[in-house]
């Protein structure tokens, strides 16, 4: 996989991020990377350190991982996070929190199988919910107030539709359609209890938002369902690595979306009653 040119020194604690080219390689269809290389690129996208990537890519030796990182660096797919433009954001910005990605123990070993199952489920049923987080045990819904659903999508008509649906389901809905609105939405109190996240946003990629949520000190356990137009293995693998709880393909039937939400949030007694919710808009 690696040639002599790609053998460059990379420090164990270095954190890389994807360049624009790297992002396109990861997000767009038709990548020529091998599965092993793609796995490393996904982990870089989650802002894991070199040492974490070496530990997480269990089917690859540290030398292989470093060679791949060197190759990506030389090829302009990745760059040190501190040198990327996306890191020069105002202090306090949700997206400026650069912490190592918390990769669930054993997630990588399971990811290949889960990704295949996920693609099958997406194609057959229109949604896929990660079994490991089905009960949302890490982030129980609040008692005594309406749970806040954060819907991150820039399609206004679709937002209106989901607003109506989830209001009837008893959620307080907060919406965000771009990077600035996402920052505002996470800063509002009470914080979101559940996130529906579109993959393709105008000025930021949904997978980056997911990675930031999973790396955030207080938001890391939020249940997140991705809304995605592409049911590719790469997309599911990417989401699994970054900790998505489920995927729903767009366009979706309302009932399919609701099934996915119900599965992720667990038994109905832990969810709000109908019509308890009220809307709010961020940004």
């Amino acid at each position, binding site marked *: 996989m690696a040639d002599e040119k790609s053998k460059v020194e990379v420090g164990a604690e270095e954190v890389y991020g994807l360049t624009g080219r790297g992002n*396109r390689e990861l997000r*767009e*269809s*038709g990548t020529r990377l091998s599965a092993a290389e793609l796995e490393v690129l996904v982990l870089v996208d989650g802002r894991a350190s070199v040492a974490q990537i070496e530990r997480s890519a269990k089917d690859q030796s540290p030398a292989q991982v470093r060679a791949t990182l060197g190759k990506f660096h030389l090829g302009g797919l990745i760059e040190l996070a501190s040198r990327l433009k996306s890191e020069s954001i105002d202090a306090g910005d949700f997206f400026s929190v650069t912490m190592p990605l918390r990769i669930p123990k054993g997630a990588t070993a399971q990811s290949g199988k889960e990704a295949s199952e996920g693609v099958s489920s997406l194609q057959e049923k229109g949604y896929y919910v990660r079994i490991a987080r089905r009960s949302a045990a890490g982030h129980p819904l609040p008692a005594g107030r309406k749970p806040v659903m954060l819907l991150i999508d*820039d*399609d206004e*008509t*679709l937002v*209106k*539709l989901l607003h*109506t*649906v989830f209001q*009837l389901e008893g959620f307080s809905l907060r919406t965000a359609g771009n990077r600035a609105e996402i920052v505002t939405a996470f800063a509002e109190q009470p914080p979101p209890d559940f996130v529906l996240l579109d993959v*393709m946003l*105008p000025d930021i990629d949904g997978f980056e938002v997911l990675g930031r949520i999973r790396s955030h000190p207080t938001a890391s356990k939020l249940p997140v369902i991705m*809304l995605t*137009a592409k049911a590719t293995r790469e997309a599911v693998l990417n989401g699994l690595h970054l900790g998505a709880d489920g995927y729903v393909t*767009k*366009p*979706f*039937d*309302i009932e399919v979306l609701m099934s996915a939400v119900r599965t992720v949030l667990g038994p109905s007694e832990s969810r709000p009653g*109908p*019509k308890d919710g009220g809307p709010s808009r961020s940004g």
Partner: protein
Amino acid sequence: MSDADELAAALAALGVEYRANLAPRLDALEALAAALAGGQGDAEDLRTLRRGLHTIAGSAKTFGLPAVTDAARAGEAFLDPWRDTVKPQGAAEWAELDRLLAALRAAAQSA
């Protein structure tokens, strides 16, 4: 009115709104394509065009317009290999894009 009735009424109203908004959205996409074909657009215009098709593909079926989703998806798929590069594209490619947008318009009008 039951929740189910209320939801059905709301969905119907939003479907009407969606259909009404579709024509101006297609106008904008066709104008972008024309500018690109005429050499006046840039990579950002191409991304906007592809993104517009992606958005329609991802929502029309939800509002009861599966043929519109299919037509928009065909346009998006056609643009996929172009990525951020507007040129070089020959007359045949621009003509094919024009045909796909016309098919999308027809699907929207017949819905």
